[in-house]
């Protein structure tokens, strides 16, 4: 800049003209501004920068949380959609093939393939009032199937170890009672055809109880009760065990 007094050129940051020493107001202003800037910088370095670091961390966290929440919402929507689609597909499949399924269930019932009937009803979730007779029969057969398994185990254990396990005998007592009681709470009224099957199963288990477990009449009566307590079941198992032990 040019000195107003002597006309010499010098830098505008100088406080005085280096030639005639005339004070330079622009240089003074510059110095004041510089000091103020230095103070601000020191204050910022001491007070604001650490806060800014926290704020930066806060911003990063906000973004991370936003992404995570977005993912969470997507997951929830995905799960709901999968359930809804699965259910709709199953329902659509059932409705579409309703006639076929009914025929298939009828055929399984007529052919007395009750294990498969049970499996098909479970698979298609068709257990219920619409298929009352089939559902009832599937559950009746399930009890009988359990007895058949215990019965096979009974013979197998006698062959293998000359005596059945006490647990097998106890299980047989429970299974025999279940078959005799033919109690299916969800479908309480036995249909005519199912009653005939239930009677057939009852005869079979009674013969087994009499012939192979050696139950007497009063014990058979106990087994024929609607409900069998744990104590009664244990007493029957003990009686069988004492009587047979094992032949």
């Amino acid at each position: 800049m040019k000195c107003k007094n002597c006309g010499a050129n010098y830098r505008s940051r100088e406080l005085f003209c280096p030639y005639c020493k005339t004070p330079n107001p622009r240089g003074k202003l510059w110095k004041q501004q510089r000091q103020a800037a230095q103070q601000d910088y020191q204050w910022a370095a001491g007070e604001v920068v650490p806060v800014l670091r926290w704020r930066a961390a806060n911003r990063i966290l906000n973004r991370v949380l936003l992404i995570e929440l977005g993912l969470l919402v997507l997951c929830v929507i995905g799960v709901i959609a999968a359930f809804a689609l699965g259910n709709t597909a199953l329902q659509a499949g059932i409705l579409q093939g309703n006639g076929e399924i009914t025929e298939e269930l009828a055929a399984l019932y007529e052919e007395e393939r009750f294990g498969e009937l049970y499996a098909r009803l479970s698979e298609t979730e068709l257990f219920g009032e619409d298929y009352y007779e089939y559902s009832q029969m599937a559950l009746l057969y399930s009890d009988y199937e359990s007895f058949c398994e215990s019965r096979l185990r009974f013979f197998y254990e006698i062959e293998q170890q000359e005596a059945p396990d006490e647990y097998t005998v106890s299980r047989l007592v429970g299974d025999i009672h279940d078959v005799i009681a033919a109690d299916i709470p969800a479908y309480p009224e036995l249909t005519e055809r199912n009653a005939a099957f239930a009677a057939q199963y009852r005869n079979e288990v009674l013969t087994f109880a009499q012939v192979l477990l050696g139950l007497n009449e009063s014990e058979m009566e106990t087994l024929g009760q609607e409900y069998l307590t744990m104590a009664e079941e244990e007493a029957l198992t003990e009686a069988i065990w004492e009587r047979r032990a094992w032949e």
Partner: protein
Amino acid sequence: MNNTIETRPPKVRIVLKSIAAVLLCLFFIQLLLFTLESVSTNGGEVTKSELIGWCDQSYRERNYPELYEMLTLYDLYDADYDLYWEAVRAYTAYTDVVEWSRAASLGTEGAQKRAQESLATLQNLAAQPAFEQNTSLARQLLEAAQAELSPQENN
């Protein structure tokens, strides 16, 4: 300038957000692991080869109750399991002969007929098994069943 900048760091908020972020992160890791496990184990479903393996083991060990349990528990009714069902049927027929012949000896009505019917089933299975592997089993069971019936017939 001092008035325009908040100089208190939002520490509590940051700590809470960090905890939330870490928990969500752990949740996603767990979800990912669960999904990977579910995919690798076929969603917890037992595979057909596993089922056949189990049935085969019981069949080889001649543990027919266990085989029957497996077949009914997992609803194994398709043609791949016919071999095992035939073996179970043969063993069941044998046990029927034993049971009904004993019932007959106790004078139970119709028991002799039932024993003969079960014996006939076993004879059919021994004569014409659908699976050759079951031939020797059916024959052994038939012999045992005939031995069980003979004393009753002699009586």
